[in-house]
């Protein structure tokens, strides 16, 4: 019986795939045939000679630093905000606050970064400030939820022992719960930073500065050579952040 259901599920998935192609009326033939492939090839070819002039490289470098700053500070802000919201969300201050905090966290993380960026650009104007704030708000929701779960699963004995010796709630949290929780919090935050460095590039499309904005402008002006340099810059940035976060993980997360 269970095997039959499994087979039905797989058949359903295959039908869904076929239906998707049909619904989109994706005429792959027209995309690839009719010289479509050659067109794409020619478009791709224009990217193969990146503009490596000093001026442009300096601009890309500046954009890269801006993107790095956006993602780094956004994640840092999100860590602080997330931890502040995670404490009530884990039930440390009673039920009504827990429900409220959970609602706030869900709202923050359900709205994708791009939508947040559109809102913050509206409020803060164009530029990296909007991007940082958008990243911070969305990531705070994600990290806050992860932190709250980690907090709920943390062993209560160390903190209880400190309370029993007369320590305050804050001291019990910092000396008893936080040391156990810290590696996990750091691991989640590093993972989000790796994600945010990719998102930071994207937020530039709605005007939030950094490499993303440069890419959008150069592509819109059909300056493929310059755009290709920006893409290379993005790649290098992503790889660097991944490597650095790996180092941090080895040092502080694995015991």
């Amino acid at each position, binding site marked *: 019986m269970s095997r039959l259901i499994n087979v039905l599920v797989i058949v359903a998935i295959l039908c869904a795939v076929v239906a998707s192609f049909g619904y989109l009326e994706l005429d792959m033939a027209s995309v690839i045939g009719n010289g479509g492939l050659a067109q794409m090839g020619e478009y791709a070819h224009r990217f193969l000679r990146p503009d490596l002039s000093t001026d442009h490289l300096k601009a890309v470098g500046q954009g890269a630093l801006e993107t790095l700053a956006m993602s780094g500070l956004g994640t840092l802000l999100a860590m602080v905000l997330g931890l502040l919201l995670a404490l009530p969300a884990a039930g440390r201050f009673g039920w009504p606050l827990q429900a409220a905090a959970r609602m706030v966290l869900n709202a923050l993380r359900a709205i994708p970064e791009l939508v947040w960026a559109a809102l913050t650009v509206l409020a803060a104007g164009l530029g990296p400030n909007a991007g940082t704030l958008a990243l911070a708000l969305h990531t705070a929701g994600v990290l806050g939820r992860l932190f709250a779960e980690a907090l709920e699963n943390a062993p209560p*004995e*160390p903190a*209880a*022992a*400190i*309370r*029993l*010796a*007369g*320590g*305050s709630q*804050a*001291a*019990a949290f*910092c*000396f*008893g719960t936080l*040391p*156990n929780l*810290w*590696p996990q919090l750091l691991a989640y935050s590093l993972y989000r930073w790796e994600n945010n460095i990719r998102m930071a590039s994207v937020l530039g499309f709605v005007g939030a500065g950094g490499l993303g904005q440069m890419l959008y402008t150069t592509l819109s002006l059909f300056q493929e050579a310059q755009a290709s340099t920006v893409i290379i810059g993005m790649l290098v940035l992503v790889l660097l952040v991944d490597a650095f976060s790996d180092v941090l993980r080895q040092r502080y997360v694995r*015991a």
Partner: protein
Amino acid sequence: MTIHLHGAGLRHGQVRALDAVSLRIDKGERVAIIGPSGAGKSSLLHLMATAVQPSAGRLELLGEQPWVLSSRARQRLRARVGLVHQAPPLPPRQRVITAVLAGRLGQWGTVRGLLNLVYPSDVPGARQALAELGLADKLFVQCGQLSGGQLQRVGIARALYQRPEVLLADEPVSAMDPVLADHSLALLNRHAQDNGVTLVASLHAVDLALAHFSRVIGIREGQVAFDCPAQAVTESLLDALYANEQLASPPTPGPTLTVQIPRC
């Protein structure tokens, strides 16, 4: 009268951990609590430390009734009582120095407490507490790298660093070898005598209890079986305390019958 339990009872759901326990312990006394596993020794100590509220009866600690006080006053009272846990509740990644200094968190303000998290403010004091237990060289090691016996000694050092007026120890030497256990108990008793501290310790090893403590309380099935000076503890009292019908000795085999099967 430092600790006074009057008809105190403790329930964990359906289980009666303690049943109508009445005790008086005066200042400066050194008392050992012995009894079979599951008798309620830990529950009694936790009750005295105000970790759990009695479900029946009354507790008086250092002249106050802790469960009548406000939460803040109870915290201040708790700072004067030190509990050595059976399984030391120390986060594995915390360094020994931070763990020991955490003993005085009840006496320091919030700011000083938080400061000690990043920079230990009283290294000599912690070192002294650990030196008597033979762990001075482990000052900056992470707790997760210590053995069970070493962790227990760190727990004792934390309680000693707290300088409480009442020291409650729940199986403080269960993970230590006999020589070390003897040394640690002697240390605790010396500390209690020198500083006028009331010491109550629960122990598995009866000989250690009889060797170091002047008063012995036997607990069985949540009730006080006997409460007398160490010299007055007899074989029969101990047998009655530790009697366990379920651990019957195996039946002695009767004479076996051998059958000769003739081979044809």
